[in-house]
């Protein structure tokens, strides 16, 4: 059986600045993995490059259930079963969430009746009825936006879910709710990759693997204890253990960066 996602030797640069630097990663079906890394480590770039955002020079390989996706346009990757939940889902005035997810489901080959049935069921399950008939992401709280993203995922049933900073901008109750929703979504037909620079969401869920990303590569992988190490000693602890030197620019950052929430990430 293929893994849901298999990434090998992935490099990406933008304006000849290398951001991903030979990244390897495998997420089997049924598993939830987390990638953690400091700001500027390339986490968001990884999301963009896998999803298919233009503007990057990309090499290497990314297989979605055995199919190479790096040469495909963004919508085709989605229809093959890749779904990225956005850190900042775009507000689209006048387009109702219900209509959008319906169109997306139909584009995925779901029958109109089945699409409607899934929308009703999942809207109730993830509590999005209140804004189902409102403009997409318009005037929603941070938690509601993330719930909307998970609801769309539940309707579209991707093979591989990429959750980009799904815990950012949320208060502690909302983080727990999102974590529970991600666990709730766990299925043998789907692999999940959470990308975060903040470990608190991991208190409410049990990822199968945790990967640490520094300078555009996965430098370490492990289980729960890796998150504990990060929570206690930050990325500096991992760097020291692995003998990684900090690049000059990174050395200027505050040691406590791991615990700061910054809205923008490279």
């Amino acid at each position, binding site marked *: 059986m293929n893994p849901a996602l298999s990434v090998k030797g992935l490099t990406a640069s933008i304006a000849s600045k290398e951001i991903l630097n030979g990244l390897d990663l495998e997420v089997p079906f049924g598993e939830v993995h987390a990638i953690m890394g400091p700001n500027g480590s390339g986490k968001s770039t990884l999301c963009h490059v896998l*999803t*298919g*955002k233009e503007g990057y020079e990309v090499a290497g390989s990314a297989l979605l259930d055995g199919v190479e996706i790096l040469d495909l*346009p*963004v*919508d085709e990757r*989605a*229809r093959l079963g890749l*779904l*990225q939940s*956005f850190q900042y*889902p*775009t507000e*689209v*005035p*006048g*387009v109702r969430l219900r*209509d*959008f*997810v319906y*169109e*997306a489901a139909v*584009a*995925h080959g779901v029958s109109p009746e089945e699409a409607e049935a899934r929308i009703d069921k999942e809207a109730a399950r993830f509590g999005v009825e209140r804004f189902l008939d409102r*403009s*997409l992401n318009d005037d929603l709280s941070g938690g509601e936006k993330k719930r909307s993203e998970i609801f*769309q995922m539940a309707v*579209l049933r991707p093979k591989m879910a990429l959750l980009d900073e799904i815990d950012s901008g949320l208060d502690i109750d909302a983080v727990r709710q999102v974590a529970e929703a991600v666990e709730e979504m766990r299925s043998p037909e789907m692999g999940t990759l959470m990308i975060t620079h903040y470990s608190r969401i991991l208190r409410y869920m049990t990822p199968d693997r945790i990967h640490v990303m520094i300078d555009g590569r996965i430098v370490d992988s492990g289980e729960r204890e890796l998150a504990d190490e990060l929570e206690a000693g930050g990325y500096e602890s991992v760097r020291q253990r692995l003998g990684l030197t900090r690049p000059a620019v990174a050395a200027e950052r505050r040691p406590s960066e791991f615990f700061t929430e910054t809205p923008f990430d490279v």
Partner: protein
Amino acid sequence: MEAAFEVFSKLEEPTGAEEDWRYVEYNLPFSRLAPVGEPGSPVPPGPFVGAIEATSGKALIVDGTVVESSSDQLVVRRLVDIEPERLLNRVPVDHNKLAAAHAAFAHDGLFLDVPEGAVVENPFLIDLQGVTPGAASFPHISVRVGERAEASVIVVYRSAPGESLLMVPQIHLELGQGANLRFLSLQNLDHAATTVTHQRVVLGRDATARIGEVGLGGDFARLDLAVELEGDGSSAETVGLYFGEGTQTLDYRMVIRHAGKHTSSDVFLKGAVEDESQSVFTGLLRIEKDAVGTSTFETNRNLVLSEGAKANSVPNLEILCDDVVCGHGSSVGPPDEESLYYLQSRGLPLPTAERLLIKGFFQEVIDRLPIGGMEEPIADEVFRRFVAHQSEGQVA
């Protein structure tokens, strides 16, 4: 009329260098056209007239002549029934050559009176047609809403397919104290027609006007709209949309003038241009010296869907009073890349994503139009234009 003719004769035809014509090419088929006396044969109902079910009355105006008019709830008169001093002429004869032409050549008119205190639920429908090839027509419409009366009026502009003609309507809407008017104009002329409409809205104390302007037709179509908030506490909302295709020019000139105290206004206008069409919005918010407590806002958003298309958006403020809240927002550009990316990232092919985005863009306006029940035919007409354009592969 004779005096008006004199003014008309004296006024120069625009050269195109005037401020009025700064953003559009002056090319009215003025000299080639002749006023028409006898109305031609009406065109069959189109997507809008056919969709309006319950009305409080109807009028058919063809080539400037009121051919039919009836209502069981409003008082309906024609020009011949009106004493000259009852005319609500708010457009100065010398406003421009076309306004003078209207004053000189309008030979008929429709006058609606909503009696004091009357509440008329269903809209009065005016089917405004130009049909005689090569003709200039000067339809005249006046609506007077009495004190505390409520009414709604729909005007649908149409013209004979493929015929080049000029229509110069004047529309006067006068609202008495505490009156409430909802007014929707659906300009769906054939693409060969030219129109310059002068529309004036005058509000008395505590009166409320909700105005909707949908502009789809015409080779050159201008709306010269002035909203006069004269009465204290009056408020006016103007909501509109336009969609240009081919070589159309859709031109909106609006002046919202706050004269009374504690008045409020909102202009919300959205448009799209494709192919080689162009649009113009010049909107002036003028707040007079004594208009304390004014609240006013103006928004104009434009989508440019082809390289050859152009949208001009020129919001202006003229504030002579300190105690006001006002603002304006204006934008011109292609469909938002971020939004398209987001929609595509859920599996929608680009053409589907674009269609959804365009639909959403206009839905915001359609939902705010003053008279309900027309949402679907309006959305369909707008959408049909975009889809036709898209299937020609002209969307980048």
